[in-house]
């Protein structure tokens, strides 16, 4: 294992420690990764440019975007995520922050315009409508047919603006519900992943983070 890959987790605001812990537990648990991997939090441009991939966590998308702009990190983030050699994964607020276009309540958020989709913020409603649902991700993660996906004031992908390069990974399966069929996980090209739910809140379930490491980080 001569090469090392570094995964950064953006730590401006939100649930970044949960991602750090999940990624670290994957590294400790799976001995078959063919490169050494380390994980670091990212608050500054110097920390960012050491990384090969970046996870943008859940949190409040307005807070995250405003802090990035004010601390002069926005321009570096923009260049970093648009570099096709880097892997990017946005969860919840992170999905909002990397999207091209916001449908609602978006005037405070200057997104990174990376993912060619239109996102609807708080698409299910307020906290009262937050939920956990077992999801079948076995079409893109082997044997993962019961992943506990946590949706907290979650956004959804309302429209895919570039169907050639953006692949739907998962539509919500909620029969008889107005939310049935909503797009909650996508992949763009082979280096960008976005989910409207929180795999980092699935305690003791490392499958989604392992997928990100194997299919994105280790393939670059």
């Amino acid at each position, binding site marked *: 294992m001569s090469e090392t890959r570094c995964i950064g987790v953006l*730590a401006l605001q939100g649930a970044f420690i949960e991602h750090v812990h999940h990624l670290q537990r994957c590294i400790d648990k799976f001995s078959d990764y063919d490169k050494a991997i380390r994980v670091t939090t990212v608050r500054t441009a110097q920390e960012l440019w050491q990384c090969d991939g970046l996870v943008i966590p859940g949190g409040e998308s307005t807070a995250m975007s405003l802090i990035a702009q004010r601390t002069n990190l926005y321009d570096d983030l923009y260049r970093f995520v648009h570099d096709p050699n880097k892997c990017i994964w946005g969860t919840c607020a992170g999905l909002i922050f990397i999207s091209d276009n916001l449908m609602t309540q978006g005037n405070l958020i200057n997104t990174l315009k990376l993912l060619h989709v239109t996102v609807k913020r708080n698409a299910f409603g307020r*906290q009262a409508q937050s939920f956990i649902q077992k999801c079948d991700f076995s079409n893109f993660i082997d044997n993962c047919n019961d992943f506990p996906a946590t949706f907290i004031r979650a956004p959804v992908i309302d429209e895919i603006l570039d169907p050639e390069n953006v692949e739907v990974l998962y539509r919500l399966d909620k029969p008889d519900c107005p939310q049935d069929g909503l797009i909650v996980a996508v992949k763009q090209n082979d280096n960008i992943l976005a989910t409207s739910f929180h795999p980092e809140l699935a305690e003791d379930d490392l499958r989604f983070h392992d997928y990100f490491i194997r299919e994105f980080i280790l393939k670059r």
Partner: protein
Amino acid sequence: MCEFKVKAGLAQMLKGGVIMDVVTAEQAIIAEKAGACAVMALERIPADMRKSGQVCRMSDPKMIKDIMNAVSIPVMAKVRIGHFVEALILESLEVDYIDESEVLTPADWTQHIKKNGFQVPFVCGAKDLGEALRRINEGAAMIRTKGEAGTGDISEAVKHISKITGEIEEYKILLKDEDRLTLKAAELRVPVSLLKEKLEKEKLPVVNFAAGGVATPADAALLMQLGCEGIFVGSGIFKSANPEKLARAIVEATTHYNDASKLLEVSTDLGDLMGGICIESIKGSKLADIGV
């Protein structure tokens, strides 16, 4: 259990952020623009409640609703300790979090709300480990230090977070002695399993924010360095000369709490800050002493 994860999960998303007290939709918009991760909607900020000497209750739902409509970030609101009907009303309004708060006049001096039965998540104040665990056992999905709201004096918040952290250290040794652990759990009035889990993990099982007396970016960074996971700011912001600038500065200080040069930058030229009342000058009982 599944449901509790959804409640505690929102608090996890608020971490590293600042929750600001606001009394109008205009203030809520200022807070959101400053980068607040949530707002606390209330009719009067604690500094004004302290002065009034009146009974302080849940705010008018109309005023809370106006704030919910004005911003896209989560909105919290306060109910009196033990007043489960005020909580039912706010749950029905669909606020994102309820603060069962000692800042309002308690409705029940002996019992807190049984929060496990509610869909809406609760945050509660605590000044030591036992109090934090009792609230979590009742169903609180987030804890904050009590501090001394409305004073602009940070010393009580510092005392409470240091106490909680110190007690975790101090009681860890009990993990090796079942009998003493059981006695300690009885003394703290919490289940043994909860105390044990917490001591093993070396932290509270839910998110722990700082509250009460935060008035400057340095105050926020101090509490973050002491181990708090985010900050509530009450009277400090809108009692200062330049609320917008101070609000932004506290947000940035909370992100970069370990970066002294950044803290220097955001602490500079903020104008007049909240004058405040120092703890030693308070006559009568402190708010932190309210609650069981």
